[in-house]
């Protein structure tokens, strides 16, 4: 029997859905991006915080809210403006660099250890109890130890942030690898993949959705731990601005730092979310269809 291409007869008869034209059509439809019926709601969602700030502004101006406790948003903006672009930039940059370094370090370690624990049940049994105990330690409890060991430089701050980012990522990697469909692993066996190929071609891509969830949780924890680190011992950064504002009795400074933290947290999460959406575009989930199907 020859192995040349044959036009299989059923593919040529066009009575039923699957062959040529019929089969391409649903694909086209799926590829065409529908207009987003939720767009006005999304815009309103972005506008909502600004609306809230406007209401606060009015209430403060009308003296409904006491100005020494709740500064008017315009006063906060003026404070930040007076701080000056360079100084403000230095505070923001200091915090961002710490978060990036700590998150990068913690997440990278968590990916390695999590993968090892996900692949080896022995290693998981060995390390999991210790990790559970370490995870239970509140972030502030680490601070005195890290200060004792590492002084008051960057090292203890970055280490604290790394600790915060580590656990959610590590958990998600272990769970992701464990939850991979046995049927896909069987497919790897049938195709005689070795351990390494099984990991890179099936286990890792299949657990990426969970890993991304862990990374995003880890990133938000990194911001939290950054503030904890800077509240204690820092001469720069948004956490320092917070404690400085408290010590000098300036709520406008405190609120300014809080607003900046909200903005930066949201911004960094959006970046990670965009990477996630791009990397996981193969997922067949409700999220990319919800907008078009059920606009509730």
């Amino acid at each position, binding site marked *: 029997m020859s*192995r040349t291409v044959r036009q*299989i007869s059923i*593919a040529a008869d066009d009575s039923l859905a699957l062959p040529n034209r019929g*089969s391409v059509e649903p694909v086209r439809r799926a*590829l065409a991006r529908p207009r987003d019926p939720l767009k006005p709601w999304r815009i309103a969602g972005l506008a909502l915080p600004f609306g809230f700030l406007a209401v606060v502004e009015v209430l403060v101006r009308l003296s409904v809210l006491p100005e020494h406790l709740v500064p008017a948003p315009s006063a906060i903006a003026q404070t930040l403006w007076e701080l000056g672009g360079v100084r403000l930039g230095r505070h923001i940059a200091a915090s961002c660099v710490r978060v990036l370094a700590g998150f990068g370090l913690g997440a990278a370690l968590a990916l390695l250890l999590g993968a090892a624990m996900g692949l080896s049940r022995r290693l998981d049994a060995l390390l999991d109890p210790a990790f559970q105990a370490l995870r239970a330690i509140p972030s502030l409890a680490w601070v005195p130890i890290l200060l004792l060991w590492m002084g008051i430089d960057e090292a203890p701050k970055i280490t604290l942030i790394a600790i915060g980012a580590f656990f959610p990522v590590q958990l998600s990697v272990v769970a992701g690898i464990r939850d991979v469909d046995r049927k896909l692993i069987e497919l790897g066996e049938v*195709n005689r993949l070795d351990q390494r190929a099984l990991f890179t071609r099936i286990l890792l891509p299949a657990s990426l959705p969970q890993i991304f969830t862990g990374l995003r949780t880890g990133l938000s924890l990194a911001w939290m731990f950054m503030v904890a680190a800077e509240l204690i011992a820092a001469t720069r950064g948004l956490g320092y601005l917070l404690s400085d504002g408290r010590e000098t009795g300036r709520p406008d400074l405190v609120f300014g730092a809080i607003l900046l933290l909200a903005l930066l947290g949201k911004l960094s999460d959006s970046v990670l979310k965009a990477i996630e959406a791009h990397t996981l575009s*193969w997922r*067949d989930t409700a999220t990319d269809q919800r907008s078009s199907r059920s606009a509730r």
Partner: protein
Amino acid sequence: MQPNAPTLLEVRAVSKGYDGRTVLERVTFAIGRGEIVSLVGPSGCGKSTLLRAIAGLDRDFDGEILLDGVPQRGPSARVGVIFQEPRLLPWLNVGHNVAFSARPQRGTDPRVAELLGEVGLAGLEKTLPKQLSGGMAQRVALARGLFPRPDLLLLDEPFSAVDAITRTRLQDLLLSLTRAHGTAALLVTHDLDEALYLSDRVLLLAPSGRNGAGCLARDVEIAAPRPRDRRDASLARVRDELLSGIGAALPAA
């Protein structure tokens, strides 16, 4: 076995037990090159267990499984497996799914386009699995199974999850593909009509062994000429014979 087809697969006295319970008892049969054989029988009689042993997914059995006279234990590149579900990797496009067994992964193997054309999905290389219907996905799975040029395709109820019309079309596709590639096929199915329409031979597994372990109860050659009419009277006679075989093997309900 077909008269002049040299033996491809031999299953010799294969037995299998789980937790002290025997599931398969001394099953012996052979399949010739290019032959299409169906494995039927009541559920729980060990059909899928047997298929998993031949596929190499289960190495823990007694007896021997030989491919061209060479004992096998573990997956072989010469045996392709089609599961009940397509099991496409959702993060790979159709083309990469078809070429999944290629190592190292090649970008554009001309055989991918060739095979996709043969299964009626020409030009869909870049499509993601989530955009395919169930029948289309199973066609991709067929192309993936054939990509490494196997001598034998194992199919575990491959068309049971699709609608009736798609099923008959996939059955015809399987026939033309195995003919075109000279591939033998061993098909587990619970659909007697499917078995009769597709097969050169039908093997009946029945729980007639000790404690209801699966044994080979019948080995029936289907002589009806091809292309077959699904309502062929001679097929109906074989059907009755197989049904009485199942009935005789089952304890009274």
